[in-house]
């Protein structure tokens, strides 16, 4: 049974909310909050319905021709569902968070309007059924995030916005060229028609290699692969909910998701292996992981340190898929979800510290655990998860990555993993130490930079609730990884059903 309206509805929930928000007056923050939250809940319900229907074996594809040889095409597969689910879940959490975070600040209408557009593009990326549609939403994402990055409107934000555009628009152009070239070569390829390129035969291999590199270059900008990562740490001037979303699901993940699509659904892992490009991917991922971690060590402020940590963590996804085996694939796919949950938690915490206590630098965090125990607990869970301690989600990734490396006979990857875990520990543990064991303003030494008492609890409930929720999820997806519908289960399903070479 075909139900093409469901993916369209899911897109519409956030796409049509944007004009509605633009129409509402700036003052009407209650109405705006209601619209935002109900749309977010509705979308979550619809995505759940989609997951259920997908397991029943329903067909949700929808498409129409735009120009000859290029079609707008939405389809639902397990990988897309994972990403759509993640974005729907985090949209709800981040909307709650943003309502609390932006209370009384100017331009909220603009913020929430573009925020919805940003989520609409993410869902579009998740449900896109071919490269053309993927490209549409990928570029829309760039446009929707620019006003969010420059939201504060001061010099540094505008500068960061310009650099962000320079990187992403150039990347988008390179991607466009690659996609057009692929269309000129073989026409429209729906995701999953892997045999189309493989059937071209060995004489097309040099061309395919070049095209793969072009597409990788275009996608690598958003995925923040070294050396294309320069925009990410600078974009940290954006408000905390934006950083959280950019890192967890929107921009960085869109790039990583695109690379997964490229490798598994357009070229097919066997072809990429045949072309000898997996080794290149492993090397790029390794360099990015180590470089990001080392740079994170040298950051004095909290958000840039988290940003470089993202640079490093997202490449675990690329490393996973480059291992050419079921375990590596599972690790890469599951990390797409896990990293999102953990990183969003960490950014919420950073936002909480900044809002409640005015803390931006790491050395101001001394003793904050006593003043804000819930936030600090959440931060601790996220940080330990990033390092890879069980039972938090990050452990699952590293475990499967290690198994994948053994299986692929690439033991040097294990060395990389160990080195990166040590580096993760080296940049996260000092923060935890400061939070819990140093004496600070909460113990009567000095003052917080800018303390505000935002709520009955340690800070506003709007800020605390999403933080607690995502923390809980990060633990649950690790603890209950063996259950059906867990990210690991989905990733295993994807890897065994679709992507085995």
């Amino acid at each position, binding site marked *: 049974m075909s139900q093409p309206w469901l993916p369209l509805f899911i897109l519409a929930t956030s796409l049509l909310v944007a004009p509605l928000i633009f129409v509402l007056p700036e003052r009407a923050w209650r109405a705006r909050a209601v619209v935002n939250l109900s749309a977010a809940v509705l979308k979550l319900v619809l995505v759940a319905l989609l997951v259920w229907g997908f397991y029943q074996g329903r067909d949700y594809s929808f498409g129409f021709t*735009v*120009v000859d040889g290029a079609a707008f095409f939405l389809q639902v597969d397990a990988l897309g569902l994972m990403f759509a689910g993640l974005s729907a879940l985090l949209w709800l959490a981040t909307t709650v968070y943003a309502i609390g975070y932006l209370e009384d600040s100017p331009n909220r209408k603009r913020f929430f309007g573009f925020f919805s557009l940003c989520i609409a593009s993410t869902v579009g990326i998740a449900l896109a059924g071919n490269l053309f549609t993927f*490209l549409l939403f990928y570029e*829309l994402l760039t446009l929707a995030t620019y006003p969010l990055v420059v939201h504060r409107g*001061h010099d540094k934000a505008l500068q960061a916005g310009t650099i962000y555009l320079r990187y992403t628009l150039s990347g988008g152009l390179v991607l466009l060229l690659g996609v057009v070239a692929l269309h000129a070569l073989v026409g429209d390829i729906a995701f999953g028609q892997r045999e189309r390129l493989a059937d071209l035969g060995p004489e097309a291999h040099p061309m395919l290699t070049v095209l793969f590199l072009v597409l990788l270059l275009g996608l690598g900008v958003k995925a923040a692969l070294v050396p294309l990562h320069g925009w990410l740490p600078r974009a940290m001037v954006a408000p905390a909910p934006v950083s959280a979303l950019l890192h967890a699901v929107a921009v960085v993940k869109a790039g990583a998701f695109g690379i997964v699509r490229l490798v598994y659904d357009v070229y097919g892992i066997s072809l990429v292996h045949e072309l000898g490009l997996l080794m290149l991917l492993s090397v790029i991922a390794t360099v990015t992981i180590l470089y990001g971690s080392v740079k994170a060590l040298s950051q004095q402020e909290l958000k840039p340190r988290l940003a470089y940590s993202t640079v490093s963590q997202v490449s675990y996804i690329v490393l996973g898929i480059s291992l050419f085996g079921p375990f590596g694939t599972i690790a890469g796919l599951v990390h797409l979800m896990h990293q999102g949950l953990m990183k969003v938690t960490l950014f919420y915490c950073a936002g909480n510290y900044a809002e409640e206590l005015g803390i931006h630098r790491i050395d101001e965090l001394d003793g904050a655990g006593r003043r804000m125990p819930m936030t600090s607990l959440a931060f601790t869970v996220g940080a330990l998860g990033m390092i890879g301690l069980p039972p938090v989600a990050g452990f699952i990734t590293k475990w499967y990555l290690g198994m994948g490396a053994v299986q692929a006979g690439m033991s040097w990857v294990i060395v990389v993993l160990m080195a990166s875990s040590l580096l993760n520990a080296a940049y996260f543990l000092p923060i935890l130490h400061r939070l819990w064991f140093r004496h600070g303003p909460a113990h009567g030494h000095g003052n917080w930079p800018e303390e505000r008492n935002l709520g009955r609890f340690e800070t506003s409930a709007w800020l605390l609730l999403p933080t607690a929720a995502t923390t809980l999820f990060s633990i649950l997806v690790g603890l209950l990884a063996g259950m059906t519908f867990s990210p690991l289960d989905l990733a295993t399903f994807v890897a065994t059903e679709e992507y085995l070479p």
Partner: protein
Amino acid sequence: MIERLGLSPLTIQAESMVAVWVVLGLPLLLGAVGGLVRPARGWPVAMAGLLPLLALAWLWRDVDSEAGRSWMIEIGSLALYWRINGLTLILIALTYLIGLASALYTPAYLREDPQREPRGQAWFWPLLGILISSLSLIWLAVDLLSLYFGLELMGLSAVGLMLLTGKVDALVAGLRYLLLALVGSLAFLLGVSLLLGAWGRLDLAGLARAVEPGAPLWVAVALLSAGLLLKAAAFPLHAWLAPVHASAWIPISALHAGLVVKASFFIALQLWLVLVPEATVAAWAIGGMAGAAVIWGGVMAWRAAKLKDVLAWSTVSQLGYLLLAFPLLIGTDSAVAALAWEGTWLQLAAHGLAKAAMFLAAGNLILATGEIRVAGLAGASRRFPLSLLSFGMAAISLVGLPPSMGFTAKWLLLHAALTGGHWPWLAVLGIGTLLSAAYVFRVFRYSFIEDAPEYEFHPVPWGMDAIALLLALSALLLGLAMEGPLDLLRGAGEGS
């Protein structure tokens, strides 16, 4: 691609002629009425503006069922050849749409403009009517006489519209424009007379069969092209464009950039396809001009200090995209030409809509802030979100980002360039995209400044914002709904 111009065979049907005459004459009539009544409100203009649209719908229904038709009109000893097909219909629709938007915008604009000239208002309507009718004639005509007539009429009414502000700099710019237009017309006329002398006929279908390569043909085509490219503000003959836009009324700039410069390009491309369909080297030379136009226009738009100059230079740059049609259509194989054909007309329509929307939105911003500099927009995003949104949506189409019409057009042109292996044009399109993003987002960068000083400003009426918004929305959203119009463009060739 010559078969897609719908030149032959001749099919004379009297009943469709009525619709054609209505479509051609109604703007003239309404213009004359407007000159007498001088509507000061938008709604009478809107009511009157529906009439030509209805006439067009009538014509469309008549013609849509077939691939297109062409016919001959004899006036004394003169024979005029006209045709109507999918391309013509689309271009007339575009003309009406942009013309109507400008007409609706003008009464409100003149009320808001502090330095208005009451006498100018009376002349605006008849001149607008002449401009729209002459443009429609140009889209219809397939003989050099009608084309020359349309071109002259269009040029003179455009100059008249430029002069309406009555200010000294407008007079200087307008007269310079007039002078250049006359030089262009002279070159065109010389080319026409050479062709007439050599082959004794002026209809394009006949010329296409009759002409033989040789010095007379090349000189004639060179003269015709030089005249037309001068009028089309093609690089390096573009210098007159920016001063003209800087001093004219906003809705007139919108018309001019959106339609008038395109008409000359349209004639030039048509003549090349008919007269010299194999002149690959010359077409590549035009391609070189296109590249220079894209880059130079983009750089100048990026550096421009005034908002209107940004838009004017952006027109120069975007016309460069259109000029790429010459190397992609002339002497290429049919797969490349088919893609480029669709891409070119889509680019023409996309730029027309987007640039008109952008001019109207920019006009709103200029009126509201009282500032003509880009830097004067500091903080505009908070104060005039709607105007800026329209500007932004038009900008997306200009840069060629999805889901706009500009994107679809660029996709087709890129596809054509790649299929044909024309690497230089690929580079031109790429560089053009980055440059246009640079100059567009420079405007936005100013508008997002939060700590700007609060200048005195007054918001414009919502109607003016709505017109700009609707035009911008059509440029932004129609990009994905292009299958129908593209079918129409393709269908134009099936009849012959």
